């Protein structure tokens, strides 16, 4: 319990510092920021914009405003070239966009992570059991190759063959297709982005699990289980997998960072309007207010995932729980 409380405190400090950092970003923009934000505005409009962005206040007050807004689900506005399009009525809310985009990104990343694990775990277990076999060498070499293929290259190659050469289906459907609306279309649009994201992760997870499994299979309790006459399948899946899966779990949590970065690029390749698309769009249009919240939301999610992984870690392996309680 104490370890969790400690971790929670650390989580809080990290989030505090990260969100302060994203709040300060707008101050770092070289030159007069309102000039960049609203190039065709009048001096009055700029003063107005400066006020609405709380740029006339000290950083900590602005930070307070942002946190307060976040708590109320208000993340500010997209502004037009002359400041907010109509005074402070805010026609294009950042929060609304997040509401649409976040579920899409989450779905893509969850599928990618799931598929990567579902493919990697059996491969890792079997290659560890048959270490040194032709199958093992083949899978290992393939995995090593996969690690060197950037996700965007895989995405483009898949998009080119599926969409252009073989004409299997339209790879850039206009707009997101909800599951309820058209289940088949929904998964069709997901398939290529998810494969592009999952491929590299499969290689990472499989190699990791394989080496951990090989180490576990040397342990006395495995010899014991064998001596008892348990079947190899039972030893592998019931006895050896769980202690071998701890590193995998941690890495799966850390890899969410890679996954998010990958999703940003992949969403832009397949023109999927998720968080990654919003970020790239916000940069091109220099929407710093929106950008601040997007980066903060991503950091929040990423840190939270790793916190959960840490807790799960302890549940999976009681030794860690005790070691921590003692230390």
């Amino acid at each position: 319990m104490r370890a969790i409380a400690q971790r929670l405190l650390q989580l809080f400090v990290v989030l505090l510092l990260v969100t302060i950092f994203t709040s300060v970003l707008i101050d770092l923009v070289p030159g007069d920021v309102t000039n960049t934000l609203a190039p065709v505005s009048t001096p009055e409009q700029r003063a107005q914009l400066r006020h609405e962005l709380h740029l006339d206040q000290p950083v900590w007050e602005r930070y307070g405003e942002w946190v307060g807004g976040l708590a109320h689900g208000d993340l500010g506005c997209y502004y037009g070239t002359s400041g907010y399009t109509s005074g402070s009525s805010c026609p294009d809310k950042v929060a609304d966009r997040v509401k649409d985009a976040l579920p899409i990104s989450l779905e893509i990343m969850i599928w990618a992570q799931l598929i990567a694990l579902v493919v990697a775990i059996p491969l890792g277990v079997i290659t560890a059991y048959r270490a040194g076999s032709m199958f093992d060498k083949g899978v290992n070499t393939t995995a090593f190759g996969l690690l060197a293929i950037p996700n965007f290259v895989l995405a483009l190659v898949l998009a080119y063959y599926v969409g252009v050469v073989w004409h299997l289906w339209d790879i850039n459907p206009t707009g997101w297709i909800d599951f309820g609306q058209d289940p088949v279309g929904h998964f069709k649009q997901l398939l290529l982005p998810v494969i592009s994201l999952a491929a590299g992760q499969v290689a990472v997870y499989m190699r990791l699990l394989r080496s951990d499994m090989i180490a576990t299979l040397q342990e006395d309790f495995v010899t014991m289980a064998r001596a008892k006459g348990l079947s190899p399948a039972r030893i592998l899946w019931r006895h050896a997998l769980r202690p071998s899966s701890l590193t995998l779990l941690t890495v799966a949590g850390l890899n969410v960072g890679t996954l998010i970065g990958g999703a940003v690029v992949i969403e832009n390749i397949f023109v999927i309007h998720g968080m990654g698309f919003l970020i790239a769009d916000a940069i091109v249009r220099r929407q710093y207010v929106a950008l601040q919240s997007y980066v903060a939301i991503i950091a929040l999610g990423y840190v939270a995932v790793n916190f959960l992984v840490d807790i799960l870690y302890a549940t999976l392996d009681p030794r860690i729980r005790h070691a921590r309680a003692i230390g």
Partner: protein
Amino acid sequence: MPEQSVEPMIETESAAPVVAGTQTLVLDAEPEAAPTVEKSATKKLGLFGWIAIGWLVVIVGLALLAPWLPIAPPDQKFLRDTGAGPSIKHIMGVDGIGQDMFSRVVWGARASLLVATASVLFGLIFGGVLGLMAGYYRGRLDGVLSYIFNCFLAIPQLVLALAIIAVFASDPAVTVGEREFWLVISIGLVSIPVIGRITRASTLTWAQREFVLASRSIGARNKRVIIREVMPNVLPAMFSIALLGIAVVIVLEGGLSILGVGIPPSTPSWGNLIATGRNELTKIVGANPQIIFAPAIAIFLTVLSLNYLGDVVRARFDVRESAI
């Protein structure tokens, strides 16, 4: 005490499996590769290792010598051959506006490798120094640095790099040099905590060894102990991370190019070649896929070589931690 809760995070991506995987791969490839050279150096390098080194030498050589090579300038237009596939005259074909792909890939290596090497160097210098200090002095300094590293690691690398570039260099009027500078700074910055943590972990183990104690006992100052005793032992870890890091940055630059904030297309880089090729491939009917495949294969082989060599170094020096 914060250190303990962080512990499971230090163990990462491909620490051990890489070692195992590499060994089987090498044994498989060439059991008695180059028996004439000293054992320890070549035993783990193997045939693939030499091929990887060979490829990197070729690529770096081409990149350095690009202006003096007998190839077309990267922006020379061969309008009659526009969109043509590979031929004797243009061994990698011609892109949609008549530019020779081979020349662009060679010049692209220049920009990609320059940005990648410079960013990793930046990260190595700052991350290395901070990591050494944190691991050697420990205590409060270590706690503070670990917290700062964790904060930076809380934002996914690509997103953090994007945010920094968005603030400092997203102006459409930005020059190539300025963009490259900010790419190096932002990617270098995001690699500091990664390199710093690995260096710290490696330093922690070395700083407790007898020879460090001996050096201190005979009155060596901390600075001398760090530079003369600890650093030489930590360098292999940093070197293997540098190799892997360059590979990561080449890919990262590609991703940033796709998002429109990589090296501007007027200067070819592997990333922006793919980014421009992507538009041509999806918009122009019958466009030749080599406009993507040529730079993509260059990236693939380079990343493969760097990963492989990084693993070899790591296996030889038994480097445990990696977070790239």
